[in-house]
Each structure stands twice: as C-alpha cells, then as structure tokens.
C-alpha cells in the first residue's frame, strides 16, 4: 500500500484571466506586472514620513503643538489608503468576449462590411453611435474581440481594455480607469498636501532649532532633515503639478487619454459630450458618483471541467483506473509506487477510489 498525496486544488477565475496582470492574496489584489516603481513610491512615502515622525515631530510637538503630528498622521494614513486602493483595485477592466459572443459580433461585422479574405488584416472596424446629439465612433478591439464602449481604451502594458481609461501609472503600478480614478485623484491630492506639510514643517523646525543651536548644528543633529527637504522639493514640483492637471481634467470631465489625443479640442472636433457644462457637477460625478463593482469576478471558482483539463493518460494499463477529474498528477510522486514495474516517470500510479467523488462534485 502506498500513500498518495492528492491535493484537491480549487481554481479561481483570476488564475485563468488573460492579460498581463499580477494577482495577490488569492485574487483580492490586482496589479500590473511591473511593480518596481510602485515599491519605490511606497519606500519614498514611508521613508520620508518615518523620518519626519521620528525627528521633527518630536521637537515640534513639544515646542509648538501636538496637533502637528496628528494632522501629519491623518494625511499620511489617507494618502496610503488611497494609494493602496488605487494600486490594488480593478481599474475597470472589460473582460474579453467569450467565443460565442466573439463569433456573433464577427458575423454582424461581416454582414455589414462583407467578408475579408483570409490572411488580410481587415481595416479597423468602427461603429457609429450618437450620444447627446453628437456622433461618437466605437472601435473594435482585436485582442478582446469586443466593440469598446465610449471612453474605453486598450492598455498595451496590461493587455486589457479598461473603461474610462485615463492612463497607465507606473508609480502606482496599475492602470487608472473608471473604478479607481477617484482614488488616484485623492491620492495625488493628499500626497501634495502631505508633501507641502512636511516641507513646511521641516523649514519651521530648522528655523526654530537654528535660533537655539545654529544652522549647521541643527543639520548635524538631524541629517534626515536634508533628505526630507530634498525629496519633498522634487515631489512638490511633480505631484502638485499633476494634481493641478487632474483637477483641470476632473472639472471638465475628461480623461488624460482624451486630452493627449485631443479628442475634444480643436475647431473641427466635437465638444465633450460627457461634460455637464458645470464644474461642480462634473467634480461631483467623477469623485462622488456611484462606484460600479468589478465585473471580473476574480475570486469566483471555476467549475472543475474548465479548470485545466489534463490530457488523457497514454499508458495502456492504468488509463482505465484513472478518474476523469483533473487532479493534478504532478503532485503524485512516482517514486512512492515501488510496485510499478514500468518506468516510474511515465506511469502515473493508480489512484484510490476517492477521486470519483470529486467527479460527482464537479457535476453539481
């Protein structure tokens, strides 16, 4: 009698999703593949704030007011929360069309345009729609095999179509789209405020302490101050500028993608049909509007017959003993079956009668 290790593995949908995303925590977290710059962002924020709390805050809390570190902590927690929300959530990925749907759409297109000879790439497929008295074109996405909704775009880095695609941000390690744009905006806004706050209070600290022990002594006592001031200075120029730019976009209900492509600017172009014409209304919709849930269903469980069907065993003798369920055979160690006479590498050992219950479970 030999002991078999048959691990019953539940496959969740995120494991089979196409596209170039990374998933963590069993599908709860969704990010782009390159995360290096995101770690840098984390490091800079955490590092600078740690130095600030460790050194300057202690002095300022005593000398000026204990409210200073409290506000700093609130700003810090808010920007970390929004950063993680931006980085870890589904930006609004549109799942790819299933084969039936893709075939249906192809048929429709062929019906309108006529068949294209094999091997020849057909021209970009465009459908015209009218939105609020303006014609908007829908483009067909060859990768996802769908007609992209208006304002959606295909991210080449993540290889997904994203609704209301803004841009792909390497600093947060994710795309910014319909579902996480408000988190992104609040992140850069709170980071701007945090940067200004830390920068200002560093100056105040240096000024106050210099009065007592002199400028050079101050810097020698807390060399971290120089580092913080430098980081804040460079961050200020970039992040505050970005916040200003996105405030402008939010007020006009535009995306970065549309702004770069110049979709709504210029004399011959249509006006932005999504803008309410009112800055306050635009801001409210973008930042406080209803939040659609993710349609990816990352943690849904795939039915067993879909979760990676193993090729049928080619071994004559044991094929009848093997159940149909795709229990991962690589977990079975052939060396545990000494009574097999044929080469252990090729012959998967016969499994105990337990697996047929798996098959019936799969039928449910």
């Amino acid at each position, binding site marked *: 009698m030999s002991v078999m290790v048959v691990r019953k593995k539940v496959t969740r949908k995120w494991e089979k999703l196409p596209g170039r995303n990374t998933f963590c925590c069993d599908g709860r977290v969704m990010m782009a593949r390159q995360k290096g710059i995101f770690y840098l962002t984390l490091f800079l924020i955490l590092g600078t704030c740690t130095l600030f709390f460790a050194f300057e805050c202690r002095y300022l809390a005593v000398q000026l007011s204990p409210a200073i570190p409290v506000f700093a902590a609130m700003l810090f927690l808010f920007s970390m*929360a929004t950063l993680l929300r931006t980085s870890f959530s589904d930006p609004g990925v*549109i799942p790819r069309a299933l084969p*039936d749907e893709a*075939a249906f759409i192809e048929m429709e297109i062929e019906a309108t345009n006529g068949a294209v000879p094999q091997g020849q790439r057909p021209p970009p497929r465009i459908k015209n729609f009218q939105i*609020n008295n303006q014609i*908007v074109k829908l483009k067909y996405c060859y990768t996802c095999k769908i007609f992209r909704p208006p304002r959606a775009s295909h991210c080449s880095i993540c290889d997904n179509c994203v609704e209301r695609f803004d841009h792909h941000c390497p600093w947060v390690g994710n795309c910014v789209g319909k579902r996480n744009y*408000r988190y992104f905006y609040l992140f850069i806004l709170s980071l701007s405020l945090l940067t200004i706050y830390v920068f200002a209070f560093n100056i105040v600290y240096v000024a106050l302490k210099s009065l007592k022990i002199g400028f050079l002594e101050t810097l020698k006592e807390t060399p971290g101050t120089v580092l913080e001031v430098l980081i804040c200075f460079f961050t200020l120029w970039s992040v505050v500028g970005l916040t200003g730019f996105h405030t402008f976009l939010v007020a006009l209900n535009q995306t970065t993608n549309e702004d770069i492509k110049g979709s709504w600017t210029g004399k011959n172009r249509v006006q932005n049909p999504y803008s309410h014409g009112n800055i306050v209304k635009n801001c*409210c919709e973008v*930042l406080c509007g*209803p939040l659609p849930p993710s349609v990816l269903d990352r943690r849904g469980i795939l039915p067993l017959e879909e979760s990676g069907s193993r090729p049928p065993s080619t071994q004559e003798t044991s094929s009848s003993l093997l159940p149909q369920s795709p229990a991962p055979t690589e977990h079975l160690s052939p060396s545990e079956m000494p009574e097999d006479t044929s080469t252990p590498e090729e012959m998967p050992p016969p499994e105990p009668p337990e697996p047929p219950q798996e098959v019936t479970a799969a039928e449910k």
Partner: protein
Amino acid sequence: SPQMLVHNLQELRRSASLATKVFIQRDYSDGTICQFQTKFPPELDSRIERQLFEETVKTLNGFYAEAEKIGGSSYLEGCLACATAYFIFLCMETHYEKVLKKISRYIQEQNEKIFAPRGLLLTDPVERGMRVIEISIYEDRCSSGSSSSGSSSGSGSSGGGGGAGAR
C-alpha cells in the same frame, strides 16, 4: 420553492440542446451609462412575444439607471466613503452592488416564469462584463411532434433550421 425552480432549469439544460445564442448589445445613445438595446432580435421571433422581451429589457435598463443614478444619495455615499478613507467599503455594500443583486433576482425570476417555459435562458449581463445580455435558445430534444417554424427537431442535423444559421 427556489430549489425546485433551479432544478427545473438544470433539467432544461440537460434535456434540451443548445441551438444558438443571441447577444443583445449595449445602447450608447445616452452616454456611457449601462443600457441595452430594446431592438427585437429576429432569432427570437418564433419563441417569445415581442412585448414580453421588450418589457424585460426595459425593466433591466431601469434597474441599471437606478444603480448609476447621480443624485443626493449617491453623493452622500461617496462623501461618507471618502471621509472614512474608503475603509467603509470593507464592511458596507455599495448602492450599485445592492441593485445588481436585485437584478440577479429579477433575471432568475424572469427565467423561471417566462423564458424557461419557452426554451430560452437569460444570462445576467454581469457575467458577461456588462457588455451583452446573452440569450440562449434551446431546442427541446424530448419533444416528439412539436416542430416550431424553422427549427429541426430530433432528427440528425442536416443543416436545417432557420434562425441565425451561425454554424
């Protein structure tokens, strides 16, 4: 009881064979909000009354409009969530999610009462990325004499059957 109704649907799947699927596309004439076209597909012509179909789609559209409504309550939810740094979403369901659950129940109800008896099955758009309403059209294998117009029943498929003719 719901269990019996679900069982009936499974019976339908087993006893009938899938003939074809129709996909109701999104209607973007009112912007990016989720709405589906109410145009009656010709494949359903022999299976269901036009009015029933339109009513179902219009009700669904109404639900989606309710989910995406921009107004006082949605602003309140947004601001409250922002004030808690969105931690409140860890324990609270959003308005949109609540409406999606209502939609699921409605679709199941419609399937039981109206579509399954006619050999049709609606798939919740949420399972198709909110792109389409997928309607599966089943041919009843068990029915001996019933030959609805344009569909070949029982005998080996010799390419008959009107409908979409996708094969």
